[in-house]
């Protein structure tokens, strides 16, 4: 059947009361659990997967899982903005400006624009998925190790733009993140690195422990030390939604974020993180007031949030068309489908068109549901900040501790969490932006692994990174970017020789 017939039939399936209910339930549960600091989409789906076993037909089951996935992503942004607690890698960038906005009393607009941006990005991306899925999927396949390396390196480079005033210090933090990712058993050689005899270190650190420790706990520690009781300013309900000015500023950021997220999100592995980084960097570069970034620029929330939502939707493409799960959460959905006897892959559209189109249609529906759910809730979330810090802080610590503990059921992770909290506190006190750390941590294995795989493939030649067209393009892009930075810095230094700001 052609695309239009397919989509219409899909809507017929998605809009049945039963499936609508499943979509709603999924979105609700996903948001509720995603809001809990430390539980990202993959963990949420893992927890809730067994519930879908009792649902006989695959269509409602997958619809529910997709709802959970989106819901969890929305929920993750909420904690990033309100509490500086990233739910998963793709939300880290949202913390940077989102939390600053919350501190300035603009939590409502931040949450609002995140919801709106995510909705637009999600919807546009599903349209893209509908129209262009097969050729895009083939494109995704052409990303082999050299391309992944170049892309991850590009992402890392973009992460430098998060480093605030001092690039040198930002780079130090980034390298630290890379080193932390090297702790544990090296997958390519099988050797255990930097474990110093401590067994628990052999599995390496978990992203959640690091991100939540450095960002969340570090922030709490810093707040505790301030004189007087900490009042996170709240505003009256009236100012809870974004103002027209906010919307005007964010419109294009959302559009750009969507495009960036869609294309980068298709690539299996790391797509959402890299797309949020690229979006942030692009917004900062294009902006007429780049100094606002890091202090609460709404574009710094709108862009990355749209990017990571577009990437989430796009990550369904390799699953539905090729049968390749792009990340851990999608892998769970993949497993769910297989258990129900549906094999995602090139034949899915032929063998089970109801699943294929039903899922796509329910993604539209899911996006709408989420925005209906979340916009009114923005007011509620903001009230959460009214809870006295004396209760909020320890409760957050408890949640993050339990979240960290349940990763491996070992007390060691609690100590690790505290240690990272200390690190976060130290960075905060030294006015060093911690953003690059968890991002480098996530990208580290991708960079190192892909590099070594590429060298194995090429027999030791570094030429492989430029001899292949896609990789060459990416390398070209970031050479231009670096050159641009250098030229810019030189010009700035020449113009004002007295003020020697750290470059």
């Amino acid at each position, binding site marked *: 059947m052609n695309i239009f017939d397919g989509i219409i039939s899909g809507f017929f399936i998605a809009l049945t009361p039963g499936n609508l209910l499943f979509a709603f339930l999924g979105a609700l549960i996903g948001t509720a659990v995603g809001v809990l600091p430390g539980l990202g989409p993959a963990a949420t789906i893992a927890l809730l997967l067994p519930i879908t076993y009792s649902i006989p037909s695959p269509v409602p089951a997958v619809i529910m899982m997709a709802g959970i996935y989106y819901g969890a992503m929305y929920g993750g942004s909420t904690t990033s903005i309100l509490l500086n607690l990233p739910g998963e890698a793709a939300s880290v960038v949202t913390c940077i400006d989102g939390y600053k906005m919350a501190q300035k009393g603009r939590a409502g607009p931040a949450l609002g624009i995140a919801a709106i941006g995510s909705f637009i990005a999600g919807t546009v991306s599903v349209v893209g998925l509908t129209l262009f899925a097969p050729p895009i999927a083939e494109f995704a396949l052409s990303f082999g190790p050299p391309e992944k390396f170049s892309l991850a390196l590009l992402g890392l480079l973009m992460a430098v733009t998060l480093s605030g005033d001092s690039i040198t210090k930002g780079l130090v933090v980034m390298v630290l993140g890379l080193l932390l990712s090297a702790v544990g058993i090296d997958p390519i050689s099988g050797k255990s690195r930097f474990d110093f005899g401590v067994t628990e270190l052999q599995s390496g650190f978990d992203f959640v422990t690091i991100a939540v420790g450095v960002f969340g706990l570090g922030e709490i520690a810093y707040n505790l030390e301030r004189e007087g009781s900490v009042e996170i300013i709240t505003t009256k309900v009236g100012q809870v939604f974004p103002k027209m000015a906010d919307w005007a500023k964010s419109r294009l950021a959302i559009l750009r974020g969507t495009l960036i997220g869609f294309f980068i999100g298709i690539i299996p592995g790391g797509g959402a993180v890299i797309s949020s980084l690229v979006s942030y960097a692009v917004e900062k570069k294009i902006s007429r007031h780049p100094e606002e970034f890091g202090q609460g620029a709404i574009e710094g929330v709108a862009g990355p949030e749209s990017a990571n939502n577009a990437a989430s939707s796009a990550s369904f493409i390799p699953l539905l068309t090729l049968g390749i799960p792009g990340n851990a959460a999608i892998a769970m959905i993949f497993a769910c489908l297989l258990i129900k006897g549906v094999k995602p892959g090139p034949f899915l559209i032929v063998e089970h068109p109801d699943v294929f189109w039903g899922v796509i249609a329910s993604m539209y529906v899911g996006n709408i549901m989420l925005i209906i759910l979340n916009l009114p809730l923005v007011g509620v979330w903001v009230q959460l900040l009214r809870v006295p810090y004396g209760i909020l802080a320890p409760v957050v610590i408890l949640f993050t501790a339990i979240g960290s503990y349940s990763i491996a059921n070992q007390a060691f992770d609690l100590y690790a969490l505290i240690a990272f909290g200390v690190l976060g506190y130290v960075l905060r006190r030294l006015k060093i932006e911690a953003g690059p750390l968890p991002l480098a941590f996530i990208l*580290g294995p991708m960079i190192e692994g892909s590099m070594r795989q590429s060298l194995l493939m090429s027999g030791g030649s570094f030429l492989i990174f430029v001899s292949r067209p896609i990789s060459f393009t990416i390398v070209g892009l970031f050479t231009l970017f670096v050159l641009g930075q250098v030229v810019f810095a030189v010009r700035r230094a020449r113009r004002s020789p*007295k003020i020697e700001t750290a470059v």
Partner: protein
Amino acid sequence: MSRGENIANLVTIALGVFVAYHSYHSLKLGILISPGAGFMPFLCGVALMVLGIFWRIQAFLLKPSRHADRFHDAQVVEGTAETSAGLRPRVKLCLAFVTTLAYAFLFERIGFLLSTLVFMLGWQMLVERERWLKSIIITALCAAAMYTLFRYLLRVELPSNPLFS
């Protein structure tokens, strides 16, 4: 360079040296066709050393100009300046740290519920200096809520009290 930054800088350089050495010696750099486990960490170690030195140089260059100092100070947004406003905030932070550490220590030893109670109670009384009645109420409610959430709603496996089982 403030004292804190100075220490951080030295730690960075020292860490760089250590990592580079360890990577070279124990982890092996491998050959180009197949970089060993130590390859990337070695590069990171070297990067840390270089960056640390660069950092120091930049800080040194920043000093002479008084204009730059004022500019730098004006940029301090939330006051890293040592608060002369008394010991209380520092003590509070230390107590919070100790309480959290105690939680980590007790978590597996006396079980989730008890350690959460101890933590919350400790926090209310030591860190927040609340009255004991209010502390107990807050503690009980929070602990009950969290327990219900994690044990029954989410079915997460958490350590129970070994004294009872």
